[in-house]
């Protein structure tokens, strides 16, 4: 029984990941995909912001397609647990952010070899880390709201909400830094604390999303 449950779980996780990854890509034209890749490859250090933006577009597009076509009742009729659907949404977002960060870091290192006038990666490491954490936190705030209010928003509202959360986190951080910059920036373990905080927020977020989705009545 355990083996059969594990095999169901692994297979469904892979199938859902495939779905969450492909659905937003299928909305794009091939030329758009190629353009994104080329821009990220050739924009050097500034491509980091762009790659985060692409990750953000892919995450919100996937979720807004689910909302647009009201597919949750269909997904839940498949042999898959609701908790697996929830976990895969997080895993997909985390992997997209991680994937784009890795891709950008590698492309940055390659650019640096070709053109040594570009700043070395180590000098922008903290900036990269904090932007990365901001994206993770945005996912952590956005997804429970999505699972709580499934079927109540259209896709443009959803995309706007996600962008709004990212911007709001930036604004709050800037305000915070203006008032507490001296004490905070001197803290040597700041990146560690921020990382731990982000992990905690995502863990609580996952728990809440599971709770909300389990209670959803999929009447549509």
């Amino acid at each position, binding site marked *: 029984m355990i083996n059969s449950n594990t095999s169901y779980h692994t*297979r469904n996780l892979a199938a859902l990941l495939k779905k969450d990854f492909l*659905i937003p890509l*299928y909305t794009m034209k091939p030329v758009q995909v190629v353009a994104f890749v080329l821009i990220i490859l050739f924009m050097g250090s500034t491509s980091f912001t762009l790659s985060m933006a692409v990750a953000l577009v892919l995450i919100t597009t996937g979720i807004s397609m689910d909302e647009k076509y009201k*597919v949750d009742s269909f997904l*839940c*009729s498949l*042999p898959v647990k609701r908790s697996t659907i929830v976990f895969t949404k997080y895993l997909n977002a985390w992997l997209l952010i991680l994937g784009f960060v890795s891709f950008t870091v590698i492309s940055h290192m390659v650019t640096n070899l070709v053109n040594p006038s570009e700043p070395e990666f180590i000098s922008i490491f903290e900036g990269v880390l904090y932007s990365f954490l901001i994206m993770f936190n945005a996912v952590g705030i956005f997804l429970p709201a999505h699972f709580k209010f499934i079927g109540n928003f259209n896709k443009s509202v959803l995309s706007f909400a996600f962008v709004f959360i990212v911007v709001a986190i930036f604004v709050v951080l800037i305000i915070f830094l203006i008032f507490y910059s001296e004490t905070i920036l001197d803290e040597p373990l700041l990146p560690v604390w921020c990382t731990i905080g982000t992990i905690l927020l995502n863990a609580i977020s996952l728990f809440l999303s599971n709770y909300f989705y389990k209670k959803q*009545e*999929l009447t549509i």
Partner: protein
Amino acid sequence: MENILEIKSLCKEYEGFKLDNVSFSIPYGYIMGLIGPNGAGKTTIIKSIMNLIRKTSGEITVFGQDHIQHEVEIKDRIGFVYDHPPFYDHLSLEKMKSIIAPFYTNWDEVLFRRYISEFELPLKKKIETLSRGMRMKYALTIALSHHAELIIMDEPTSGLDPVFRRELLEILSGLIQDERKSILFSTHITSDLERIADFITYIHKGKLIFSCPKDDVMDLWGVVKGPNNWLDQDKQTLFTTVKKGEYGFEALTSDAKSIRREFRDEVIVEKATLEDIMYFTSKGGENDKQ
């Protein structure tokens, strides 16, 4: 008889609607028609079986297992067709299939291709371009391509042309030649069920009116017609629903045999169709006992 699906005392409450203590079962190898007017609770029952909505109380077992505890294993063996199947409409039929197929242990690509060809579905076209009938054919193809043992269909024939409706009914009849397969089929087009169903479950305003073999329904229920002056207070109690008109009354009875035996010379007793039963019970009447 071993049951593929058993529902015991199922209750579900919404604002303004209550599914009240519904129980019925389907044996292996049979087709059960779930009938009732719009809003009777048919979709609520089906969505409760699929755990898409949470039941308030009651027990549902499928293949002898609890439908929540063994949800994944059970759904792997169910083919489910919605009244308006929700798909990612911007995908082609081929791409949508490639998203769905990996979820099923027994997905059969050859069988899928066979149904696609039989239903003349355009694999490369986007789902959003399909007509209602073709969309339903596609949903049916998906439901039938993983060797499901229990097919659950919510209003599959509504909005379909008569040719495809007949074709669908033939496919369903063919499926249960395998005696381990069963079908639960909700509809308000009762003529479809008179053609293929073995059992009928009738729901009205969230309550179970009856669940029994179709032939029993046809034998037991009757429409009685006669003059208004024949219908005194005592006789009215013999009927489920009575409708009086200017030229006489029409009444529905669930004991047509007794009425025929006792009042053969005084009134006309006709066999009730499923539509008659639905019509009389949903419209109510002077002696509505529901």
